[in-house]
């Protein structure tokens, strides 16, 4: 086996040193019924064979790059500079563990410190952690954190929060309190203020929301704060922050976000990278790892994991979260991509995305009976079609066009959303992609 360096001679010598005659003796503590020398599984295979087997499966999927492609709804296709993937594959990043020995992990630690700073800057918050699994679990953690901070346990979710996020919150935080979800209102800012009361720990609002709608968070922030509740802002498209007012500037107390758009591919849904930012005063209630600055015994600047007294490995059942492994390498990719963009590039990229979406929305909403549902948006909008979106999307897929995400996949029980299609456009969509889409949609609806 190409991955196993011990030779038969090595094994004999080692057994001799241990003083047993066979490796079976080392497994003697295993109860007999569980010893399972045979499995209905194939024997080992060479690299070429394994590559062939998986390449065959890969070839059975329609890749986003193979034609016009417009899916978003929480995962976005952006162009990632080649240097990002090159760098994250460096052995020293790829094959190291969580930086528990800071003297020989300054690379990872400095990266995390920079990542935390970038996330704090784009979200407009004071501090950020070193990543969560993804946006949905970050949102659930934000709710739990709000419970801890406020000592209350009722969370209000916007109806236009990505349904997967809402379900994740209900699953992960459901045991810790009550979760109230407002009705879905595509293209309209939902009225959450009436749902907030003295028992409310937080209001969770996504911006842009799952339909792409942009909303001003200030009113809801004020409404929440007036009742002593926190505003949790969810951002699933971080590119939007290059052009849109930050949640921090609009009054959010916690920002939970999905960082995939920066540095990370679509990957069929994972691994992604959860962003988590908040105000400095809440830092000791944060979940997850934090890198902090310090000095070494010669007085040189260095970085360590810090405030571990929040974490499971120190605090066990009193920890702020059970998270251990996070999304380190995805955070690195995020950070490299954002370092390449910088303020100027992020802003340009955001403009291009908005422009693309504007152009596409204009083109598609000109088609008879197609209605643009979202008046204000960043790079994603929702159309109301004259037919069930599932049929339209299927027909377009047969024409090689992945037209977007049908709302009915996310809201299967909302007949009113049957004809809604959520469409994202990014810098990766060409003019001819958009033309092809327009033509094909007109045809399919004709």
């Amino acid at each position: 086996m190409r991955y196993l360096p011990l030779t038969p001679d090595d094994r004999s010598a080692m057994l001799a040193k241990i003083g047993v005659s066979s490796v079976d003796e080392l497994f003697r503590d295993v109860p007999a019924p569980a010893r399972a020398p045979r499995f209905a599984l194939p024997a080992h295979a060479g690299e070429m064979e394994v590559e062939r087997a998986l390449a065959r499966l890969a070839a059975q999927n329609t890749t986003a790059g193979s034609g016009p492609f417009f899916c978003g709804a929480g995962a976005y296709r952006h162009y990632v500079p080649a240097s990002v993937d090159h760098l994250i594959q460096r052995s020293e990043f790829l094959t190291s563990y969580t930086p528990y020995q800071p003297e020989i992990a300054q690379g990872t630690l400095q990266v995390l410190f920079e990542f935390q700073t970038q996330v704090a800057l784009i979200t407009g918050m004071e501090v950020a952690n070193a990543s969560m699994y993804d946006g949905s679990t970050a949102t659930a953690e934000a709710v739990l954190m709000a419970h801890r901070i406020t000592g209350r346990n009722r969370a209000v979710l916007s109806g236009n929060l990505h349904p997967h996020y809402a379900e994740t919150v209900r699953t992960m935080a459901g045991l810790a309190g009550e979760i109230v979800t407002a009705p879905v209102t595509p293209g309209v800012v939902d009225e959450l203020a009436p749902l907030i009361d003295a028992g409310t720990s937080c209001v969770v609002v996504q911006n842009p929301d799952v339909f792409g709608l942009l909303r001003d968070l200030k009113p809801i922030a004020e409404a929440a704060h007036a009742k002593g509740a926190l505003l949790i802002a969810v951002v699933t498209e971080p590119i939007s922050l290059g052009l849109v007012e930050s949640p921090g500037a609009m009054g959010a107390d916690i920002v939970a976000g999905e960082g995939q758009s920066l540095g990370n591919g679509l990957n069929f849904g994972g691994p992604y990278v959860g962003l988590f930012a908040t105000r400095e005063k809440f830092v000791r209630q944060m979940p997850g790892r934090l890198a902090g600055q310090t000095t070494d015994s010669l007085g040189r600047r260095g970085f360590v994991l810090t405030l571990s007294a929040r974490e499971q490995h120190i605090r066990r059942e009193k920890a702020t979260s059970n998270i251990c492994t996070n999304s380190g390498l995805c955070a690195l990719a995020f950070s490299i991509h954002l370092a390449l963009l910088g303020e100027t590039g992020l802003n340009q990229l955001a403009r291009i995305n908005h422009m693309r979406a504007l152009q596409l929305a204009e083109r598609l909403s000109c088609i008879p009976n197609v209605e643009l549902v979202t008046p204000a948006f960043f790079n994603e909008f929702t159309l109301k079609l004259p037919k069930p979106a599932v049929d339209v999307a299927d027909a377009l897929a047969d024409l090689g066009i992945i037209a977007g995400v049908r709302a009915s996949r996310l809201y299967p029980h909302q007949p009113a959303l049957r004809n809604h299609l959520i469409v994202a456009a990014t810098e990766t969509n060409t003019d001819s992609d958009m033309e092809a889409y327009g033509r094909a949609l007109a045809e399919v609806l004709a």
Partner: protein
Amino acid sequence: MMNAQGRPTSSGIADKSAAATTSGHHGLDHEEKLIFEIGHTDVTGVDLPEMDLATNRLGGLARRQPIGLAGLTEPQVMRHYVRLSQRNASIDASFYPLGSCTMKHNPRLNEKLARLPGFADIHPLQPQKTVQGALCLIGELARWLKELTGMPAVAMTPKAGAHGELCGMLAIRAAISARGETRTRILVPESAHGTNPATAALCGFTVESIKAAEDGRVDLAALKAALATDVAGIMLTNPNTCGLFERDMIAIADAVHAAGAYFYCDGANFNAIVGRVKPGALGIDAMHINLHKSFSTPHGGGGPGAGPVVFSALLAPFAPLPLFVHDSNGFRLIEDMDEARAAGATPLGRMCAFHGQMGMFVRALAYMLSHGEDGLRQVAEDAVLSANYILASLKDVVSAPYDGPCMHEALFDDEFLKDTGVITLDIAKRLIDEGFHPMTVYFPLVVHGAMLIEPTETEPKASLDEFIAVMRALAQEANDGNFDRFWNAPLLAPRRRLDETAAARKPILRWRPEPAA
């Protein structure tokens, strides 16, 4: 371009500390500033067309303040991250026997395959008929996991071990509710990984610690004594965090089940037994598997990972959405609660958006196919053999609290350092100077000054022997009273010991621009 012949070079051992440099760099070890100190908001490392947004539809929400993000050109980015990387230890460059973390070799084939556009460039919500290959891969991985564990069902979406624990404990909670019962206590052995009690607490359970017996296993009598009708379950790691196999698994399972509770097994150490032991035969009800440990998806400096959970028939109906279905129409996801119920399931909910860690799935399946049944068995055998070899080779000079055989990791304590002035932490830091990543220290908590050494099966014998020789030398040095050299270690790393206390006392968690003078 070329060297002229120099004078014969001096051969005396020069004093490196005299080699203070003007630049602050030291040969190939470079100091590196923060991106915010290198870059500038006006600089960018991408070339994008300038877009004039004559109109916009931002609803009046255009950003009003600059962000303050530094941009770097590609040469600067490359230098920054290459230099930073060079300040990290890694499995690729050195032995990394971090117990409980399974720092084994990460095959590069798996990296290549995870990047195939057919896996990396597909969207989780594109029509399912366009991702049949991806769904098939997940199904295939699920089949391997079920067969290897001997368990009938698996939930694929949990994003790491701790998330898998949560999934498993929520299933237990749902099963208890479904029985119309309320049970509030979870028993957790004191040697448990921190995620176990944290997870139980997250599910609203109270955590009750069960002490270890003399032999480093759960004290069966204590466990039995603690079982009662308000006990929802037990969370037990096996092989446990002392690196030992819980011999009484079946008796434990019987007792737990007899009490109407469930048996959660933390399977993070599955690599020790994969291909040799079917945990399904031990009576467990749920177990997560860390693909990033047992199946070698890279740790990446802290993540990402994946923590699928296998379930017994009892808990299988509570597995979270989405469910993976394979029927005559091909592969399909059930993403809706009602549809799941119609199919006879009662999902506990949804663990996260979308369908799990596809990137890890591809790598793990490639790892499994590469090793095959025979290779996986060899993985377990070699991992256990290597750990026992270390135990046998060190135990005369480094105190080991428990007798062997151990499983995949060897546990030592600090008894051998008594009265030397040297502590476990010093051993760790000295190992850094010697070119090794230290073992896990001060975990598990059940022994004093723990040193948990997990060599893994991908370490050559020569490397184990080198480590053993160094550990023996360090034990000798400590006994010789040479504590000074320990206290100052590491001397040869990019940094000396870092002040963690100061870091926590006044946390600096981000860069901030220097206030204008």
